[in-house]
C-alpha cells in the first residue's frame, strides 16, 4: 500500500498515497476561505440571542415592546411565539427534548430566551438590552453528585412523569464474572476520578444564514455544521418542512471537534426568522455564547476498580460512572449507546472480565457531552483505564511501562473480542509501546528522574496506551435518530479523464479536498490535481451522516475506494471492447488496463473515459459513461491505537507544570497523506495537554458558568506545548478496502492520561496517587499540600 513506490504526477503530486500539499491551502493562505460569517446575501438581516443570566429560574413575564419599537428591529421572537408554531421545543439527538426558546423556566446560565432580528449586528445587540424579563430564581443543581438527592430541585418538570433528575442507567459487560475475578485477586485498587467538563471551542463559532424563499418555499440554509445531511433530515422532521426543499450548504468551517454536530436553537430561530421577515437571517454566536451554551464535552465522574495478581497480571476492571448531561439530554451518539463507546474502557489489555455502569443525570448546565474529538467518549474510557493502570503500578511498586508490556494484547490475539463485546480488528501493541520507549530513551529518562529526585527536583514520566474505536458504524448497531451510519459517494469521470467526487462527509479543516483526491488517484491512477472533491451541499452530494468520531476515512474513505473500484471495473469492460479481447485477458497497472503478457496493448483511464463517452459500441447491457455511486456500510469499526509518553517538570514552589517532551507513536494503518496525519496528531496532543493542565468549564454555587470567555476558558498557546516527537507503526485494518483506520481524534483521546500520569509521577515524593484535571498550578500546589481540589465546582460542597 505505501511500501511500493508511488508514481508522481506532472504537477509533482503522488498518484496515490504520500505527502502532498493541500489543495485547500491555495485559498486559505490568501484569506480567500469562505466561512459562515463571510456569507452575505442581498437584504440579509442580523440576529442576536437574549440569554438567561440564571441557572435555574421561572419566567414570570417577558416584555419585548421596547425592543420591537427599536427603529432597526424587524422582529423579536420569544418562546411564546414559537409555541404558536409548535416549535418552542425540539427533539435532541438522544430522543429527549430541548427548549428552542425558554417558555416555562430557564435551566442553565446562557440558555436562549429571545431572538432579535435587526438591520445589523450592533442594532440587534442594542435591542437585547431593551427586553425586560422577570424571573423567579430557583435553586440550581450544580453538583452532579447531588442531582439524585431526594430534596434536589426537579429540573425537567416540563416532562410528564419526570419526578427526579435521573436520565438513564446503562451497563455493559458481565457483573458476575467481574465480581468473581475480583474475589480471586491478590490486589484491588480503587480510584475515583473526574473527567471535567471541557469545551471544543473551535476558533470559529457556530452560525447560520437561513434563507426561506417565500415563493418557492425552498429553504437554503448556510450552516457550519459537521453533518449537513443529518441536519437536513432533522429540520424536515422538526419543522415539518419538505425535505426536498431544504438545501444545507456548508461553507469552509473553522474547526469543529464535535462542537458543530448538534442543532442549536439559534439555527431553528434563524429559519423561523427568515419565514417571519421574508428576508435572509444571519446568526453567528459570539465566543461567550459558544462556550456557555453549545455542546460541551465529558463531565464524567468515574469510580474505577482494578483487580490483579501480585505479580501484575490484570484480572478484571469495573467502573461506575455518574454522567452529567446538563439540562437537556442532547448528546449525539448511536442510539443503542447512551454512554457512547465508553464501554471500550477495558483498553488495550488482555483480561477476562469487565463491567461498567453509567447513570446519566440532569443538572442546571448547558447540554451536550459528546464532543471535543472524543470518539463518542473513548476519551473518558482511555483516561479511566490508563489512569487506573498507573494507580495499580504504584500499588504494586512496578514500573508502569513494565506493567503495561506485561498485559498488552499480543498480535496473535487479533481479531480480539473484548469483555464488553468490541471486536478489535488488528494490532501490534507491544511494538508500538517499545518504539515509543525507544524514541523517548525511557531508561535514561528514569535515571535522570532518579538523579533529580535526589536534588529535590520534580520530573515526571507518563505513559498512555490507547485503543480507539472509530468509523461509526455498522448500520445494524449504529444509527442517530434512526438514520443508519452509512455514507454515500458519487464519482464522475469526465470525457477528458478528469474527475469529480462527491462526499457526504464535511471537512472542518481535515483536508478532505486533498485526501479524497488521493484515494481516487490511488485506485484509478488519475492525478490528484485532476480530481475535484465536492462536499458541503446537500443538493449536490449523496446522503451520509457527516464528519465526527474520526469517521470520514473509515466510512466515507471506504466509499470513495469502492466507488473508484466500480469505475475501474467498468473501465475494464470498455477496455476489453476497445482492445477486442476478453476482460479476463486484462490486468490493471496503475492508471491503465493492459493485456496480460502484452503490456503494450492497453488503454489509460483517461483514454477509457473518452471511449466511455464515444460512439464505441459497448456489449449488451453495458451503459455508456464512466460514473458510479456507492454507499458504504462498514462491517466493523476500525481500531487505531498508539503509545504516548509525556515528560514534565513541575515547579515545587508554584505547582506549575511544563511539558518538556511528548512522544507519540500512532498506528492508524497506512497513511493516505502522512503530512495531514501528523498534523492531526499534533493538534490532538495540544488538546490533551490543554485538558490535562488548563481547560475546564466550572460553575459557582449560583450556577454561573465560569468558563465563558477565552480569558476564563484557557487554551494552550504556543508557549505551553513543546514540539512533538512522532513515531509510526503500520497495522492495516483487515476489513477496510484501503486498510486505513481513522486518526483525527487519536491524540486527543490518548494524550490526557499521559500528561496526568506524568504529573502524578513527578509528585511521587509527596505520596500522591491521583489528582483531577485540570492540573493547574493551584491544583498541583494544593495536591502537594495533601488537599486535592474538585475542579468542576468553585465552591465547597
Amino acid at each position: 500500500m505505501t511500501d511500493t513506490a508511488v508514481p508522481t504526477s506532472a504537477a509533482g503530486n503522488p498518484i496515490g498515497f504520500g505527502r502532498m500539499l493541500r489543495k485547500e491551502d491555495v485559498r486559505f493562505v490568501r484569506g480567500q476561505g469562505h466561512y459562515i460569517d463571510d456569507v452575505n446575501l442581498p437584504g440579509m438581516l442580523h440576529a442576536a440571542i437574549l440569554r438567561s443570566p440564571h441557572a435555574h429560574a421561572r419566567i414570570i413575564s417577558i416584555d419585548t415592546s421596547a425592543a420591537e419599537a427599536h427603529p432597526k428591529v424587524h422582529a423579536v421572537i420569544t418562546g411564546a411565539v414559537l409555541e404558536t408554531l409548535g416549535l418552542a421545543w425540539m427533539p435532541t439527538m438522544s430522543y429527549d427534548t430541548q427548549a428552542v426558546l425558554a417558555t416555562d423556566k430557564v435551566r442553565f446560565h446562557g440558555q436562549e430566551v429571545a431572538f432579535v432580528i435587526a438591520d445589523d449586528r450592533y442594532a440587534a445587540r442594542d435591542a437585547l438590552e431593551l427586553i425586560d424579563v422577570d424571573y423567579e430564581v430557583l435553586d440550581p443543581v450544580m453538583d452532579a453528585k447531588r442531582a439524585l438527592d431526594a430534596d434536589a430541585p426537579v429540573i425537567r418538570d416540563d416532562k410528564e412523569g419526570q419526578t427526579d433528575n435521573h436520565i438513564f442507567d446503562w451497563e455493559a459487560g458481565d457483573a458476575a464474572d467481574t465480581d468473581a475475578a475480583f474475589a480471586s485477586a491478590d490486589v484491588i485498587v480503587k480510584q475515583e476520578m473526574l473527567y471535567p467538563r471541557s469545551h471544543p471551542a473551535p476558533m470559529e463559532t457556530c452560525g447560520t444564514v437561513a434563507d426561506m424563499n417565500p415563493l418557492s418555499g425552498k429553504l437554503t440554509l448556510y450552516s457550519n455544521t459537521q453533518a449537513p445531511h443529518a441536519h437536513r433530515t432533522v429540520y424536515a422532521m422538526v419543522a415539518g418542512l419538505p425535505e426536498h426543499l431544504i438545501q444545507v450548504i456548508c461553507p469552509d468551517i473553522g474547526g469543529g471537534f464535535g462542537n458543530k454536530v448538534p442543532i442549536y436553537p439559534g439555527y431553528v430561530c434563524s429559519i423561523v426568522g427568515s419565514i417571519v421577515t421574508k428576508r435572509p437571517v444571519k446568526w453567528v454566536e459570539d465566543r461567550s455564547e459558544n462556550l456557555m451554551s453549545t455542546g460541551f464535552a465529558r463531565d464524567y465522574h468515574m469510580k474505577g476498580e482494578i483487580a490483579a495478581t501480585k505479580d501484575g497480571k490484570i484480572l478484571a476492571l469495573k467502573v461506575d460512572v455518574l454522567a452529567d448531561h446538563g439540562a437537556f439530554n442532547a448528546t449525539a451518539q448511536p442510539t443503542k449507546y447512551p454512554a457512547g463507546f465508553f464501554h471500550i474502557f477495558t483498553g488495550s489489555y488482555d483480561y477476562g472480565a469487565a463491567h461498567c455502569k453509567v447513570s446519566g443525570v440532569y443538572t442546571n448546565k448547558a447540554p451536550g457531552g459528546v464532543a471535543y474529538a472524543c470518539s463518542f467518549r473513548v476519551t473518558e474510557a482511555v483516561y479511566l483505564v490508563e489512569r487506573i493502570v498507573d494507580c495499580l503500578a504504584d500499588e504494586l511498586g512496578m514500573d508502569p511501562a513494565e506493567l503495561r508490556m506485561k498485559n498488552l494484547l499480543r498480535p496473535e490475539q487479533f481479531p480480539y473480542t473484548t469483555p464488553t463485546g468490541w471486536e478489535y480488528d488488528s494490532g501490534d501493541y507491544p511494538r508500538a509501546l517499545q518504539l515509543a520507549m525507544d524514541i523517548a530513551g525511557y531508561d535514561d529518562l528514569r535515571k535522570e528522574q532518579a538523579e533529580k529526585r535526589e536534588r529535590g527536583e520534580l520530573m515526571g514520566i507518563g505513559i498512555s496506551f490507547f485503543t480507539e474505536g472509530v468509523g461509526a458504524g455498522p448500520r445494524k448497531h449504529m444509527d442517530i435518530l434512526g438514520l443508519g451510519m452509512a455514507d454515500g459517494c458519487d464519482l464522475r469521470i469526465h470525457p477528458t479523464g478528469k474527475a469529480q467526487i462527491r462526499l457526504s462527509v464535511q471537512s472542518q479543516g481535515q483536508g478532505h479536498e486533498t485526501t479524497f483526491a488521493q484515494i481516487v488517484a490511488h485506485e484509478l491512477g488519475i492525478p490528484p490535481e485532476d480530481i475535484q472533491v465536492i462536499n458541503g451541499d446537500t443538493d449536490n452530494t449523496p446522503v451520509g451522516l457527516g464528519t465526527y468520531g474520526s469517521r470520514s476515512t473509515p466510512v466515507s474513505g471506504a466509499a470513495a475506494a469502492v466507488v473508484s473500484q466500480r469505475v475501474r471495473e467498468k473501465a475494464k469492460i470498455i477496455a476489453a471492447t476497445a482492445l477486442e479481447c476478453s476482460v479476463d485477458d486484462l490486468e490493471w497497472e496503475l492508471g491503465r488496463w493492459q493485456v496480460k503478457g502484452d503490456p503494450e496493448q492497453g488503454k489509460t483511464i483517461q483514454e477509457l473515459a473518452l471511449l466511455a463517452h464515444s460512439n464505441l459500441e459497448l456489449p449488451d447491457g453495458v451503459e455508456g459513461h464512466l460514473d458510479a455511486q456507492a454507499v458504504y456500510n462498514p462491517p466493523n469499526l476500525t481500531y487505531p491505537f498508539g503509545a504516548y509518553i509525556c515528560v514534565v517538570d513541575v515547579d515545587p514552589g508554584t505547582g506549575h507544570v511544563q511539558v518538556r517532551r511528548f512522544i507519540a507513536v500512532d498506528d492508524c494503518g497506512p497513511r493516505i497523506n502522512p503530512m495531514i496525519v501528523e498534523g492531526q496528531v499534533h493538534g490532538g496532543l495540544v488538546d490533551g495537554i490543554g485538558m490535562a493542565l488548563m481547560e475546564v468549564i466550572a460553575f459557582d454555587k449560583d450556577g454561573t458558568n465560569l468558563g465563558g470567555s477565552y480569558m476564563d476558558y484557557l487554551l494552550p498557546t504556543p508557549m505551553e506545548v513543546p514540539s512533538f516527537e512522532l513515531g509510526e507503526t503500520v497495522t492495516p485494518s483487515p476489513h477496510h478496502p484501503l486498510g486505513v483506520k481513522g486518526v483525527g481524534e487519536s491524540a486527543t483521546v490518548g494524550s490526557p492520561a499521559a500528561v496526568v500520569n506524568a504529573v502524578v509521577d513527578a509528585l511521587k515524593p509527596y505520596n500522591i496517587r491521583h489528582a483531577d484535571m485540570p492540573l493547574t498550578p493551584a491544583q498541583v500546589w494544593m495536591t502537594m499540600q495533601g488537599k486535592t481540589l474538585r475542579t468542576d465546582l468553585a465552591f465547597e460542597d
Partner: protein
Amino acid sequence: MSHDHHNMVSVSVTVNGEARTEECEARMLLVHFIREKLGLTGTHWGCDTSNCGVCVVSVDGQPVKSCTMLAAMADGAELTTVEGLETADGLHPIQQGFMECHGLQCGFCTPGMMIAAKSLLEQNPNPTEHEIRDGLSGQLCRCTGYHNIVKAVQFAAEKMSASQEGASS
C-alpha cells in the same frame, strides 16, 4: 442607558496599498470595518476579548488585534491584511511556509497568525524556536498544535534571509 450610537464617522485608511474612505458608526470595531465596510473577509473574528488573535492585522506596521480597536482610531492609518501579503512576485514567504510546512488546517486562525508572524520576522529575522513561540503567544490555534506553525515561520525566516543575502550580494 442611551441606545443612540448612531453618530457616524468617516474613516480613511490605506489598506493593502489602496486608499479607502467609508462611513461607519463611531463605535464600530476595526475588525467589522475591515470585513463589512472594506469587504476584506480574510481577517476573521474569534473571541471579543483579545485572546485569540484571529483578527490580527498590521496597523502602521504593528500587529494589532482589530477586535480591540475602533475603526475611527485607525483613521489615517496604513493597514495590511492577509489579502495584502501576496505581491506580483507571488506568495509572501510566510504564505509559502504555511503551505509547505502544513502550518494550517481549518484556516481560520491563519490570516492573523501570518500577519503576527510577519511582524515577528520583521523585528527578529532569525528567531529561535522559543522566540517564535513567544512571538506568537497571542495567537490561538485549535488544529495544528503549533508544531508546524513554528516550522512554517522557520521556513519563512530562512527564505527571507536568503533573499536578503541575495539582494545584498
